[in-house]
């Protein structure tokens, strides 16, 4: 090799490539984890918004359902929830917190769970629904006793 420098060319190139690789890899890793964080945060926000709207619907059905009476009474509210949050499918579960109910919205990948409390006077039946069209209805179970009644959440 026609080279006048004190260091061999091969070592120079190895150093250059090594540092370049490190820099580029570092950028990719940082960029990747930043995007992951953003994604998780966005999923959390979107699930929270969807949950609040659905909780509002459940409370509305509870409130208006209690004003109905007679044998042919019905209170039904339908909502088109988004099918996915940031292109990730999610499920909504009604959980019983003792005195009240709450909605838990969760995705599996990334693992995000959001919990929305609801304040209802009627019991909300335990249920699990997917994103999409959801129907919230008041079930008076054919009796006049309001403590029997339930609010039912189900997929259309």
């Amino acid at each position: 090799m026609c080279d006048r420098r004190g260091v061999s060319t091969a070592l120079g190139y190895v150093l250059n490539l090594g540092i370049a690789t490190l820099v580029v890899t570092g950028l990719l890793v940082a960029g990747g984890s930043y995007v992951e964080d953003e994604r998780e945060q966005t999923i959390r926000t979107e699930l929270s918004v969807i949950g609040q709207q659905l909780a509002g619907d459940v409370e509305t059905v509870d409130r208006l359902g209690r004003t109905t009476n007679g044998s042919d009474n019905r209170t039904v509210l339908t909502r088109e929830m988004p099918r996915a949050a940031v292109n990730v499918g999610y499920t909504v579960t009604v959980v019983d917190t003792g005195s009240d109910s709450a909605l838990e919205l969760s995705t599996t990948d990334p693992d995000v769970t959001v919990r929305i409390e609801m304040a209802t006077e009627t019991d909300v039946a335990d249920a699990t629904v997917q994103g999409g069209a959801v129907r919230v209805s008041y079930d008076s179970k054919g009796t006049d006793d309001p403590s029997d009644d339930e609010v039912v959440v189900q997929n259309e």
Partner: protein
Amino acid sequence: MADVTGDPSDRGQLFLVGGLSLAVILVVLAVTLNSAIYTENLATRGSGTADTDAVEQARSNAVHGVEGLMEHTIEANPSSYTDQQAAVDSGVSELHTLSRRYAAQNGRLVELTYGLGDDTRGVRVLQTTDATFEDDDGNDSWTVATDVPAVRQFRMDVERSSLNDGVLSDSFNITFTPTSGPVYEVVVGRTILTDETTVSVYRDGSLVGRCSDGTGSQTTIDVTGATVAGSYCPALTFFGDLPPTYNITYENADDVRGTYELTVEKAIILDAPYGGGGPTKQPALYSTTVGFYFESNRFVYETELRVAPGEPDV
């Protein structure tokens, strides 16, 4: 090993690959942020309260409409239940058409239905001429109605100068005596000092509350509506504490002058003290049940509305 001494345009392949990967990451980031914007938009969308406001409004309109219809029908057909029922039937039909048209303007469907026989019968006792509240035989202590489960639209218009201003036990009073439970007395008297009509309510002999009115020379007392001269009187909100059934009696009916009316939820009451110069009684529907149906693009609401104009809020 890569040919790094050759053509200069072959150099920097690692940076190319690295740059491409970074570009892909940025695109994913853009998609994520787009979802974030969508979420913000989703959050600002109406949560559907417009529909629930509309149903409450429609329901309230239906109840008020049927209340007015019933009052008018009873006035216009004072002699038979069948006439009143027929009038309510055609009236509800009209209300249905009007409500439907109004709701359709906002893309909603409202339906009102009435089935003949969807009502309870009662009797309306009234005195329309200005006189003392004695019965037809001139008794100042008499039973207006016995064993009634409920009463509505119990209103009187009394002249202040006719009221007793002395001892309360000499004043005109209306007594509600249930078969078992607390006895309520509504005593209507006058305070000379301030020239006011006073309405006092007693439960088993002890005072619950008192309301007075000093305006004009006449006082309108709405016993079931709990108002004295148009102002709310909390003492008169005792109907929730009064168990059915009860008797309604007047005492010292000669210590008051004016007009009154009441409607009781009982199909037949005795003939004896009515007619002629005193109070009269006539058939009147006590309550009506109307089917109410509301539908919008995401909401369905169906119920039976029980309408009884002037019934106390319990």
